[in-house]
């Protein structure tokens, strides 16, 4: 965004404020939902969806990923791939064992 002009910046400032409001709203929602004591699966799903939306907003607008360069998308795509792999790690630790001696 280093090529952006001051006028564009003014427009984006409005976006920032909008995003800020959205983030606050989502924070309230996620806290509120937690008081409903949903089942574990439902709670996890909702919480993670809300968190992902919030994180995307931050990444897209504050970190201006919406208008970033190819090199950075490639880096992030690679990282995302390995990140997902890392999330599978708990499955890999699932061993061929019984818990016989408890």
């Amino acid at each position, binding site marked *: 965004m280093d090529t952006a002009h001051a006028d564009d910046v003014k427009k984006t400032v409005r976006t920032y404020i909008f995003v800020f409001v959205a983030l606050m709203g989502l924070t309230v929602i996620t806290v509120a939902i937690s008081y409903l004591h949903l089942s574990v699966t439902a709670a996890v799903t909702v919480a993670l969806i809300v968190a992902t939306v919030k994180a995307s907003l931050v990444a897209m607008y504050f970190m201006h990923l919406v208008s970033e360069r190819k*090199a950075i998308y490639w880096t992030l795509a690679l990282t995302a791939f390995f990140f997902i792999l890392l999330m599978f790690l708990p499955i890999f630790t699932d061993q061929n064992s019984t818990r016989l001696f408890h």
Partner: protein
Amino acid sequence: MNIPYTSTARPDTGLYNAKLGIWLFLASEVMLFGALFSTYILLRVNAVSWPHGYEILNVPLATLNTVVLISSSVTMVMAWASLMMKKFDKYKMYMGLTILLALVFLVVKYFEYSAKFEHHLYPSTNTFLAIYFTVTALHGLHIIGGVIVNAYLWGPGSKMWKTDPQRFTNRVEVAGLYWHFVDLVWIFLFPVLYLL
């Protein structure tokens, strides 16, 4: 001789050096927190019993901290936008606010921690607290690092605005990218540790 592309972008990549650098650094941070997150999942799935975060931790305080951190992200991005609009005074104000909010976050965290210790809840008490303390402490260290960088850019580092405004703006943008990332991590930590 000067190193090229410290303030202007290289035409074919469209990036200046530090921006690519910080994104690469953030990529490694993703893997760092990813590994901890993965640890959390593993431990939780395998645990015989796992407490709900809200039974042990202070949700209102953490909500406050979430609000504080998100606000600091906004002030950070505003600081950068002010520089883009060549308004140095506004930059000073927004950057100052960012630092202040970060300090508020740390103070709140301090109260959270000491409340836990008072109730004899330590990292060694159980696996939930172990992961809670480890991850939030690491995140706290990231906040402290950010505060130091931001304080430098607010104070002595801001002299560069006079000599090389473009490069200074870049620096603020890069610091901002880091700061938003720290915020982003918290956005995940908060529900995962406190609400689930």
